[in-house]
């Protein structure tokens, strides 16, 4: 009985204290001590938990990021590839337009051919084109590009032909200086330039003068550009001067050429 009374009294006292304390907070100093001792541990544990939680979250995040990164890389590569293709098409379009414009300016019948191979030796300058006998190509026909004379057909098969470039040492073309009409013979050299031979000393030639085909060799049409004069050597003796010509064509980058199918033929017999 006494126990029950004590318990009831305790409950009542407890309720009274709680109701009094609920109106205002007071820890009576013990809270500070508890915080002082417990908080560092709480902090450590919380931080550790947070750390592992972050690792876990970061890991999964990284996995997804890695996947996303892979996809983005693939997309970029695809875009670069596509861009490169467009760029190539654009360059090709520009080149072909150039070739087409040049073709329109030519009165001769021409055939567009693609360069498919080059000479296996660096000492000789020839190219293989994808047009041959079946397309009407014949041995000796001139090959030109918008920049000027490229070379001459020296060998043909049914579908392909070999072109001797004007920078080859075995190549020669009759030419003249556009400004002064001084005549000479353009021959290839091993350094990729041409030698303008048999030009008389008396002719006035300056560095930068344009050299064009004379048409007198019976191969190349008249007036096509070859290159510009890059060097002139006048020896003390001799009737000729040595002129070096730098071709306008970059033969390393030659991709398409025009084969002139009906070059102007000189009827030397009737002319005489």
């Amino acid at each position: 009985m006494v126990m029950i009374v004590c318990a009831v009294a305790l409950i009542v006292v407890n309720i009274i204290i709680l109701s009094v304390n609920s109106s205002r907070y007071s820890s009576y100093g013990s809270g500070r001590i508890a915080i002082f001792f417990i908080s560092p541990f709480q902090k450590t544990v919380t931080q550790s938990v947070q750390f592992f939680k972050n690792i876990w979250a970061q890991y999964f995040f990284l996995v997804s990021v890695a996947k996303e990164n892979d996809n983005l890389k693939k997309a970029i590569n695809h875009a670069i590839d596509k861009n490169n293709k467009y760029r190539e098409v654009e360059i090709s379009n520009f080149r072909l337009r150039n070739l087409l414009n040049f073709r329109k300016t030519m009165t001769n019948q021409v055939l567009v051919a693609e360069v498919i191979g080059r000479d296996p030796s660096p000492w000789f300058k020839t190219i293989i084109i994808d047009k041959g006998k079946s397309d009407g190509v014949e041995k000796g026909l001139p090959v030109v590009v918008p920049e000027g004379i490229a070379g001459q057909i020296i060998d043909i098969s049914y579908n392909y032909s070999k072109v001797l470039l004007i920078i080859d040492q075995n190549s020669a073309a009759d030419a003249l200086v556009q400004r002064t009409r001084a005549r000479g013979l353009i021959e290839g050299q091993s350094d990729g330039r041409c030698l303008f031979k048999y030009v008389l000393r008396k002719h006035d030639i300056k560095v930068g003068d344009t050299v064009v085909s004379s048409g007198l060799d019976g191969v190349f049409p008249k007036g096509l550009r070859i290159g510009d004069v890059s060097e002139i050597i006048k020896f003390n003796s001799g009737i000729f001067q040595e002129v070096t010509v730098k071709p306008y064509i970059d033969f390393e980058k030659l991709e398409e050429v025009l084969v002139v199918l009906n070059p102007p033929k000189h009827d030397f017999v009737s002319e005489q």
Partner: protein
Amino acid sequence: MTYCFYICVCLCLVIFQTTIIPHISLFNNFYDLLIPFISYLGFFRSARESILFILILGLLMDNLSGGPFGLYITTYFWLFIIVKLVVKYVHIRDNILLLFIVAAGVLMENIIFIASVFMSDPDSQFFTITIRTVIFQILWAGCTGLFFVTFFNHIHKKLEKWFNEIIAEKTKII
């Protein structure tokens, strides 16, 4: 089988040399890739087996090149003979000799080509670019020639082994 291998390798080399190499500026002064192949034939294969193929190969290259006809046939034929003589009299078959042979073959080819250029046009000028081209070709040959010869030898041996195994199996079945 051997001739099939020769044809395949040579076609690959010729096409690579005339279409891909000219587009790579690093290989502007690269040497004739058939030189290591001829060296390989001279070093490891019999004359009876190789000589006809070498002549055909020379003929093919002469037709592709703009140089005087017979230049490649001459070069390949004499290179093969020299390699055979070296193998016969030196009695050493190590990698250094092989490397030396490839580099010497490249030098020999260049000398023959330059000589032919000067023979056709005695007035032609000798440029520093000519010397530079030759030096670069020899250096390239020194760096990569041995690799090519070893590669040809390795592949050929593997193919022969594989082919012999197939024949042996077929013989067993019969």
